[in-house]
């Protein structure tokens, strides 16, 4: 119900809104809920009189929107020019392979989520990623695997305590 209340609150700010308000509404909902849930999209669709397929289509056109809640460890891979030149796509691919998810997705157990971001302003550290805001610098592909393993291990140890 919480999502519904949040979305309702946002929609009241868009009185008599038409289609062109869609993107700002989606942005507000994502800011407030962290992602665009099905329930939220249905609610927005009913409000704007738009089929959800259209909303999903528009939202997937921009890569700022995600449709799954972020995981416990939210991995942001920088795709700024410097990072790209220094091989961030290899690092990203490794995360995808190891976690079996793609950009914008969350692992089934909710532990990891992945997001490609444009320059996060740490070009000196390229290629750089941030996990829950904490930077990991100058990575090579294998570092991605190592980081995933470390977090998994930490989680296991946490469980055993």
């Amino acid at each position: 119900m919480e999502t519904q209340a949040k979305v309702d609150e946002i929609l009241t700010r868009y009185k008599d809104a038409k289609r062109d308000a869609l993107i700002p509404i989606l942005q507000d909902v994502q800011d407030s809920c962290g992602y665009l849930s099905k329930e939220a999209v249905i609610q927005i669709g009913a409000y704007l009189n738009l089929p959800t397929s259209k909303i999903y289509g528009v939202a997937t056109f921009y890569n700022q929107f995600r449709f799954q809640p972020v995981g416990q460890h939210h991995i942001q891979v920088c795709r700024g020019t410097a990072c790209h030149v220094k091989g961030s796509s290899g690092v990203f691919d490794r995360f995808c392979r190891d976690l079996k998810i793609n950009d914008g997705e969350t692992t089934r157990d909710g532990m990891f989520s992945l997001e490609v971001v444009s320059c996060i302003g740490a070009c000196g550290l390229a290629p750089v990623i941030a996990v829950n805001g904490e930077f990991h610098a100058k990575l090579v592909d294998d570092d991605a695997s190592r980081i995933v393993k470390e977090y998994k291990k930490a989680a296991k140890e946490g469980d055993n305590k």
Partner: protein
Amino acid sequence: MCQIEINGRVAEAKIGETLLEVLRREGVKVPTLCNVEGLNPTGACRMCVVEVEGRGNLVPSCAFPVSDGMKISTHSAKAVQARKTIVELLLSSHPDDCNYCARNGNCELQTLAAELGVRQRRYKGERKKMKVDVANPSLVRDPEKCILCGRCVRVCEEIQNVGAIDFIGRGADSTVGTSFDEGLNVSSCINCGQCSLVCPTGALVEKRNVEDVMAALADPRKYVVVQHAPSVSVTLAEEFGVKPGTDIDKEMVAALRRLGFDRVFDTSFSADLTIMEEASELVSRLTHGGTLPMMTSCSPGWIKFVEQYYPEMIPNLSTCKSPQQMMGAIIKSFFARREGLDPKDVVSVSIMPCTAKKFEASRNEMIVDDIPDVDFVLTTRELAQLIKMHGIDIENIPGETADNPFGERSSAGKLFGGSGGVMEAALRTAYHMVTSEELTDLKIPAVRGSKGRKEARIQVGDLELGVAVVSGLANARKLLDEIKEGRNDIHFIEVMTCPGGCVSGGGQPINLSPDTVRQRQKALYRLDQEETLRTSHQNPAVHRLYKEFLGTPNGEKSHRLLHTSYVARTDVLK
């Protein structure tokens, strides 16, 4: 009017029309992949490009208005090469699946590749692996075969006002898909199959039940009964290259027997039965203060539409099952008992113009004690496949007539195949029920034709009935909204999901021309004109069934077997 020059010949054109319209009229064929007659052009595929003198670039003729004195060249080397390149690029990321594809031999992409002389793979694109969506009972979606022409998206949105599918993602990752990339089965899709009629490729095809039916026919323990819908006899011939509007009812019945069906029944018989039930329901609602306007219930796409978008209007729907389901219910009860068969050993197959009928047959309401009214539904296209597969020469086979007890039909039942037909049949019978007389002129022109909305006021005894006939659910939505806003001069509404009715159903032969649909419709009117038995209530076989088994229309037994209920669908991603 103005004059333009096409390939050196002068042609008349109307200011404001598109080049493509003129070209078609002048007998020049320019290929199109995204164009759908009747919908706004998008110019997305660029297959229809032509050269216009004085302009550097090729222009898409579908979206280019004519102007006086324009000189165009439709098949210059440049234009042809441009088209060929588009096809080659489309093929570069396309699966090489033709031999295994439902559209093999009837695919616009394949045809264009052949016509443009593509003989070589000049471009090698990356092939994306995508999941085939098979969870829906009516349709299969194979996004790998999608060329992103957008026809399905527009038809679903503009004709049906459903919008179950749209462009998803962007750039090289674009696909056409559903909300949240879920299966069509949980989407707002109403299973109408109109998208499969316009899809140029095998990306959207009917869910195939040919093999299920063949297995049943081959099983000696099974007694396999088939029914064929009113419109199929006037469309099937097209699959064999015969001109649209040719009725081959008798040849089709003969073919069905040769395929091994134990009994061949005519759904037009149960359409007559539907009319008995529905007309009595209407009269009863009119005289006992029931919910009005009453809305017809034989089109399963429409039913799902109401269930998901207008649940508050479910009480307006007639509770009558569709003719397909009525026939199925009678086959599994009365017929099985009469023949001394265990209903579990009877397989009931129906040949339908419709993909949504597959969904309808699978509805929980249509399955009693694990026994479905209808086991398998084949579309007209699938029947053609079966006939071809079995080497039956439909054009030369001696005709036969359908079996008793459910082979006899009135032409009113036959009219169910086109928009306005249920209305006309129902009015003929309702008139008789109210006045005990027959309409002086059985033909009711006001409800005929393929217009999206028809309205009339008809005097039935003391009652003046307001009736409306709509097809294409965008038209239905407009009407329902008027009613919700207070319009109250309409008592009875016929809705068919597909524009023009079953003759252009999602399971019919794929032929985009509006003239084809008119020819199919005309064939039904012709049959009605030539028939002597033209009202459902005069069908002696229907009378026998009431006498021997059902009792009275709208009676207790009818209600149990021939009527149904609906559910508000709040769970679909609409």
